[in-house]
């Protein structure tokens, strides 16, 4: 039996805030050898054979859920997907009861996506299984932060000193928070940019610069990580209209072309083309948006492997068999 408390990460991955730089670096380094598995004709290694993983998604998700599922299956875990609709959740079962019932069926790991900040930690404190946060409210989405960092490192060869600006709806974004924690710990310079109605209070205290004009952000940055603007934000009155948002805050080809140095363009998806990002930017040569998606599977494999008790230095061996 592998220990449930991994020597490298602890029991759970709830966020990047409480990880050390060394732990984050270990996850990124462990992801490197796992990238290759997805390039094989037979995309399966026995690293998690016999492990049972529940993907517990209280919010709809396509990309993250599928990415986790691929990572789990390519490591030979047995997986069960539970979506909120049609499950006991909609029948009024509490989060803690759902968790206890799953636990009673003897599982090893839970991947949870939930609309409430703190839900992943709440679960992690109450069940002995490893818990991986796949996004909780506006709090954190650690594997997204990690895959963004891996993608920047791939593209620029380093994270130290790289200037990354997170653009858009930072207020409601768990991706933004995980990026801020992870990147600042590994020595990147981080800024946020958006209309002031979509920037959280006192965000500067997290060690980031604040821009309210996207032109200034582009002038400053090496990397733009462009966040999705959800339609509800316009209905909530945070921005007057999507058209104005694109006109004033959108990452357009015209603006990107004026950057003083080549920009790396990222987006955690799903994109609203023509709102926060123009298609010619998203599909252009500076875009690494699909690399992010590819790296997502490798990063999630690394997290699963490490939480199951694997050692970073043995990842290369592990992926070749027992």
């Amino acid at each position, binding site marked *: 039996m592998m220990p449930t408390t991994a020597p490298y990460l602890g029991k759970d991955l709830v966020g990047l*805030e409480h990880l050390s730089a060394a732990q984050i670096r270990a996850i990124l380094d462990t992801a490197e050898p796992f990238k290759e598995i997805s390039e094989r004709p037979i995309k399966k290694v026995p690293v998690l054979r016999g492990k049972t993983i529940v993907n517990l998604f209280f919010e709809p998700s396509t990309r993250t859920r599928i990415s986790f599922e691929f990572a789990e299956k390519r490591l030979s875990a047995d997986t069960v997907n539970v979506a909120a609709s049609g499950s006991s959740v909609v029948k009024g079962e509490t989060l803690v009861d759902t968790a206890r019932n799953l636990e009673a069926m003897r599982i090893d790991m839970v991947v949870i996506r939930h*609309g409430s900040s703190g839900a992943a930690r709440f679960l992690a404190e109450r069940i002995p299984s490893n818990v991986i946060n796949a996004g909780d409210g506006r709090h954190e989405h650690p594997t997204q932060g990690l895959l963004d960092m891996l993608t920047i490192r791939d593209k620029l060869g380093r994270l130290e000193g790289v200037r990354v600006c997170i653009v858009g709806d930072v207020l409601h974004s768990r991706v933004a928070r995980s990026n801020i924690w992870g990147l600042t710990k590994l020595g990147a310079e981080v800024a946020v940019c958006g209309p002031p109605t979509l920037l959280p209070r*006192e965000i500067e205290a997290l060690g980031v610069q604040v821009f309210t004009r996207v032109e200034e952000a582009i002038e400053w940055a090496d990397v733009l990580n462009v966040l999705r603007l959800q339609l509800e934000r316009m209905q909530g009155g945070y921005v007057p209209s999507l058209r104005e948002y694109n006109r004033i805050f959108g990452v357009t080809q015209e603006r990107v072309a004026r950057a003083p140095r080549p920009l790396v363009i990222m987006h955690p998806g799903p994109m609203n083309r023509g709102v926060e990002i123009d298609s010619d930017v998203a599909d252009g040569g500076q875009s690494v948006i699909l690399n992010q998606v590819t790296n997502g599977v490798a990063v999630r494999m690394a997290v699963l492997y490490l939480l199951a008790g694997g050692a970073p230095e043995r990842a290369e061996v592990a992926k070749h068999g027992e």
Partner: protein
Amino acid sequence: MANSAERPILLKGGRVVDPAGGVDAILDVLLVGGRVAELGHGLEAPPGAEVRVVAGLVVCPGLVDVHVHLREPGGEHKETIASGSRAAVAGGITTVCAMPNTDPPVDDPASVGYVRAAGLRAAGARVYPLGAVSVGRQGERLTEMGEMIEAGAVGFTDDGSPVSDGGLMRLALEYTLAFGVPVASHCEDRTLAKGGVMNEGLVSTRLGLVGMPNAAEEAMIARDLLLAELTGGRLHVQHVSTRGGVEMVRAAKQRGVRVTAEATPHHLTLTDEAVDGYNSNAKVNPPLRRAADVAAVRQGVVDGTLDCIATDHAPHHYDEKEAAFDDAPFGLVGLETSLGICMTELVHKGLLTLPELIARMSHNPARAFGLPGGTLAPGAAADVTVLDPDEEWVVDPTRFLSKSRNTPFGGWRLRGRVRTTVVGGVVAFEQAPHAEVARAR
């Protein structure tokens, strides 16, 4: 053991602190027939009297808590009038004002009478209902305030919710002028606090929780103070939590506005850092604020701007708090920890003298709501709290008499503890004896 109001009680040799009468001296206190009979040196025990030697202890008027949620009717799994009234006396509190945000709400004379009657049966603290300001707490039209006062209401509030309609709040402050009772206000601009679950600031940003800015509370305090000034009505501002709120109440008092205001033990001691880790027992409305606000609330209590300390005791069943932070209800219990926290944090840290604290926990709140008690003057109700100002104890929520345990103070080491609580000349609560009391004797 059980005594009755017929049996006199003589409390001998305690430090008697009665701010209303300017008393702070080693005296005996004689309680006869449910009233304070006499304060003096070397009082003789009348025949049949129970004599209690309270040397080394403090004897003060029973504490009065003007902001308590007893949850009955409708929330009996959280608290009942009986359990809440017993929890109160365990905290040295002899009188509580019950908030009307029950289910159904206390918004008519019959429901006021129900709470009053259940309180009389409860064998704990005296229970005085506040009635709702608006029918159904819907914020649309006034309740039958005159009849509710006849049935026993001592004031009005839509607590839990603000009276958002300024016109209705004006009417409430005007209409109550006929009766001389206060309107207590939970000050919150709901459009500014919308969706909020904690204080807005760095901690809410870090945790990804929706914040409520200070301005949401302050905007409504400003409005209500202006309406009190306009109408001449009696306003009681509940649970002031922000620096701006304290400053506005202070300025209004200087202008002569008829306003009283309360601070809670939790807003006097905790910041929004207590929420870290998504601690749902620190989820409360108004939320725990920042250190500068805590300091201002303390200063407000010290200089008398905030004349009352009230708990906003808000019991919730454990499985209601055992939820994702967004889904957990607001509120925390306070009856059994209030005195210990205030002794530890205000008196033993030198911010208030003991008589000043007793004034804010007993006399001032009694006066604000026109309640009996709050003084040991001869003829006053024999509501008395005996406390050991130096006893150290650790808060153990599993030992609460309240039905609920939702406190952020579990495990706190406090100095100052209730020994005996007397309500109407009857011993309503007795702390288990312990070594230090034995030594003091």
